[in-house]
């Protein structure tokens, strides 16, 4: 932990924490209300509680339901991945046949992509945090928000049906003409993707409208937290890209159903057109997966470095730039599919350009830590893991985006390792970090720091053991999706499989920590991390049903941590400006005691709703 002289950690109270820190007792609590009244006891509470939850339009409850749903699919798809890895322990068939192996990795891919990563951060953390960060009571269309959750569940149910009726063996990309010919359950699975896509669109529309139209007074675009900027960029991609995969899936389904020839070369169609359509969605979709993670990391880097996020505007606009450029690079998945060399060169060039905004972000995060008080909590450890792993994933992305190199590496484990470094090392690390960060706000309980840090170490170690070996395997020529392999790859496959067990163990520790905290965790104060965005400064933990009792007036940027601790923080030195305001010359803000929260000025702004509203005079 590095601190500068100006920033001795402030721990004003050392008395054992009461049940709730004084001044932070949540009076209203979205987890409990609306619900049955307290005099309803025992089992009689179950049905009213369930009914209140499944019919809720409260974005916080919808976020929590999304969190449970995506965690479930993450677990199922993760178990599939462990089975795939275990089968690859030795060449040949151990306990899966080649056919079962194909279905298993497809199950892993489809579930992870369409049922976990795409809805993960926007659906759970985004839904929960976005309206509170904007200082509003709910998203613009709460019913649509609930509808999006149920549409997602409907899509997921169809996917489960597809799996139960035999699964599919096409890989998550559904490439034609194989997906036209295989006898597996392609039809229900494509419909599942189509339906789940609708959920993505509805969430995207909701977020864009909420951000545009409903920000609290004083919350200008330049004061928006970077998580909001990221979700805004994501929503644009969701709205513009998802319909295309929708129509692609419809065309594929019709082709199988009616025997028409749009993608099937035997019927006059063009299978490469399917690849164009598919990647026109699915490449932007990888930014749907990673951009929210960028947003989470920006929040974590600022809060746990205790100073302003460096290059606020650059990070904000680079999110939008990635969203836009992301639409122009889909052809880099098709370098060896027979597209013209000219388009390959252009796609390769634009792929390099994507590296610029990504690099801007990474360098700015590193700069944010520079001369800050880096506070190594669990969320920060996950954020640092992200930084390390995403950088590897991003740089290898440039490698496979290079035309000549890709011809060698195409469809090898190198590509598998690359996108796992981005998707798992990026998005999943950020999501876990974000969960540790927002967990006290979501559930009003602190997670165990000790076990959190241990889990961060185990996950980081297991992840690298699993996937770094795959870079080596891929560069040596191990093709992806193969059921068996030559003897020279045996050792590295074994290392990778054992690494996957460490990874699974680390994730189990995270899950255990979460469950433990719900029952045994210490009550969380309103602002345990001393953060400066509205969900921490103006809402109780857990928040009230309507988030705020008074609409907040935003008077400072999202990363002006100093103003929370200084008595007269609203004057001078750029505070009161935007996210990039302030010169930072005062050094980083003090570190609060997470069990007591940031105890200074800001606690006054958390309105517990105890005061009766004054009758209106005018």
């Amino acid at each position, binding site marked *: 932990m590095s601190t500068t002289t100006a920033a001795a950690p402030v721990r004003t109270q050392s008395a054992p924490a009461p049940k709730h820190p004084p001044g932070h007792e949540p009076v209203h609590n979205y987890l409990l209300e609306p619900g049955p009244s307290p005099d309803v006891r025992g089992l009689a509470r179950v049905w009213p509680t369930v009914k209140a939850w499944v019919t809720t339009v409260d974005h916080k409850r919808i976020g929590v339901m999304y969190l449970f749903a995506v965690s479930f699919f993450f677990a199922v798809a993760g178990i599939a991945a462990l089975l795939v890895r275990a089968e690859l322990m030795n060449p040949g068939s151990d306990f899966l046949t080649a056919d079962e192996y194909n279905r298993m990795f497809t199950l892993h891919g489809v579930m992870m992509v369409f049922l976990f990563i795409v809805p993960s951060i926007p659906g759970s953390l985004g839904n929960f945090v976005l309206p509170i960060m904007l200082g509003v009571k709910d998203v613009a269309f709460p019913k*649509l928000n609930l509808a999006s959750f149920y549409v997602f569940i409907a899509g997921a149910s169809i996917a489960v049906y597809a799996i139960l009726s035999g699964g599919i063996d096409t890989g998550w990309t559904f490439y034609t003409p194989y997906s036209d010919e295989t006898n597996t359950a392609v039809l229900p699975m494509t419909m599942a993707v189509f339906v789940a896509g609708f959920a993505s669109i509805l969430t995207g529309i909701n977020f864009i409208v909420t951000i545009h139209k409903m920000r609290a007074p004083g919350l200008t675009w330049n004061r928006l937290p970077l998580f909001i900027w990221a979700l805004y960029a994501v929503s644009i991609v969701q709205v513009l890209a998802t319909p295309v995969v929708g129509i692609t899936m419809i065309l594929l389904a019709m082709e199988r159903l009616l025997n028409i*020839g749009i993608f099937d070369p035997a019927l006059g169609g063009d299978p490469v057109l399917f690849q164009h359509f598919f990647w026109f969605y699915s490449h932007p979709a990888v930014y749907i997966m990673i951009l929210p993670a960028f947003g989470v990391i920006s929040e974590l880097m600022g809060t746990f470095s205790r100073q302003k996020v460096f290059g606020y505007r650059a990070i904000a606009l680079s999110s939008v730039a990635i969203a836009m450029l992301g639409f122009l690079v889909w052809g880099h998945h098709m370098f060896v599919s027979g597209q013209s060399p000219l388009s390959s060169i252009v796609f390769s060039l634009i792929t390099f350009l994507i590296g610029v905004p990504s690099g801007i972000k990474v360098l700015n995060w590193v700069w944010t830590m520079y001369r800050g008080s880096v506070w190594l909590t669990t969320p920060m450890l996950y954020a640092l893991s992200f930084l390390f792993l995403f950088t590897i994933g991003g740089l290898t992305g440039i490698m496979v985006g290079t035309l000549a190199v890709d011809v060698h590496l195409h469809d090898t484990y190198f590509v598998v390792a690359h996108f796992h470094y981005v998707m798992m090392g990026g998005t999943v690390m950020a999501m876990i970090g974000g969960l540790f960060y927002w967990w006290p706000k979501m559930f009003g309980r602190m997670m165990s720091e000790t076990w959190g840090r241990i889990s961060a170490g185990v996950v980081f170690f297991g992840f690298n053991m699993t996937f770094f070996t795959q870079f080596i395997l891929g560069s040596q020529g191990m093709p992806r999706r193969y059921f068996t392999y030559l003897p020279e790859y045996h050792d590295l496959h074994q290392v990778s499989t054992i690494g996957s067990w460490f990874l699974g163990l680390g994730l189990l520790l995270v899950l255990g920590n979460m469950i433990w905290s719900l029952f045994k965790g210490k009550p969380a104060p309103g602002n345990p991390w001393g953060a400066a965005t509205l969900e921490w400064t103006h809402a109780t933990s857990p928040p009230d049903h309507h988030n705020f009792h008074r609409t907040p007036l935003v008077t400072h940027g999202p990363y002006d941590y100093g103003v929370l601790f200084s008595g007269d923080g609203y004057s001078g030195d750029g505070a009161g400006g935007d996210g990039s305001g302030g010169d930072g010359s005062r050094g980083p803000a003090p570190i609060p005691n997470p069990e007591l929260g940031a105890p200074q000025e800001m606690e006054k702004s958390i309105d517990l*709703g105890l005061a009766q509203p004054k009758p209106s005079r005018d």
Partner: protein
Amino acid sequence: MAVRPTTITVDDPHAGHAGGHHGDGAGRPPHLKHYFVSSEQQFDAAKLGMWLFLVTEILLFGGMFVAYGIYRSMYPELFSEASTQLDTVMGALNTIVLLGSSLTVAWSIRAIQMNNKKLCFWLLVTTIVLAGMFMVVKYFEYTHKFELGILPGQNMVYAEGTTFTLPGLGDGNIASGVGNADGADPGGAEANNAGAHAAEGTSLHDLAEAGVSTRADLHAEGAEHGYVPGEHGLTNQRAGLFFSIYYVMTGIHGLHVLIGMVAIGILAVKTWRGKYSDAWYTPVENVGLYWHVVDVIWIFLFPLMYLI
């Protein structure tokens, strides 16, 4: 300690707590949701949301228009020939009907803005009637084609080297399905093309050109089998591709018309009950926007399918 206020009250803070009846704060109009500050904000939000949804609709159809464009450029003769099977008069009639319905729906928005609820109701009903007319014409167009045997997929064999025929007119080999393609292939065309395919990757243009070059032969072959070119209009062995796209695009467009009819029906009922007024007509406006997009898509479909 001079601290500026960090909260202001711009709304009734406890509006949402009264027994779950949202938006029943004093002085708030009944349509104003509790999480909006003002009617203007709610209207703007709803309208922006609708526009975003319409963008997704355009992109959904955009995929199909791209497919149309690609196959049209690949097989220009096929498209010009197969499109003669479509009834231009019916298509033109439908275009006029749909344009008329767009007028009435726009007029109904104007009517409700002027607080003329009765006129708004009858204009919405007219819109539904016109939309129904559109679907009836579509029904006759579809059934006519079904009678001719032009069905999506099932009864068309259009693999390379096979003549498109109508059931009962062609030889027995070409009943249905992909699997029959090889059997129906009389000679070396398939093998030649397969060879070209293997040699040149996925160059479908080559396939198309090969198909075009043998079209004269296929003409003759079709005539031998008792197939009279021109009578049923189709000599191109891949005519099914055009009709696949035709059925998919007009089918999904028709589905949108049906959804629009339901939505306008709900609007009409609510207008009859006096739910909307010049103070609040957001749903009328938004459904109107949707209906215009359905109309605009047809405006593109009609010339692309029927005229050129």
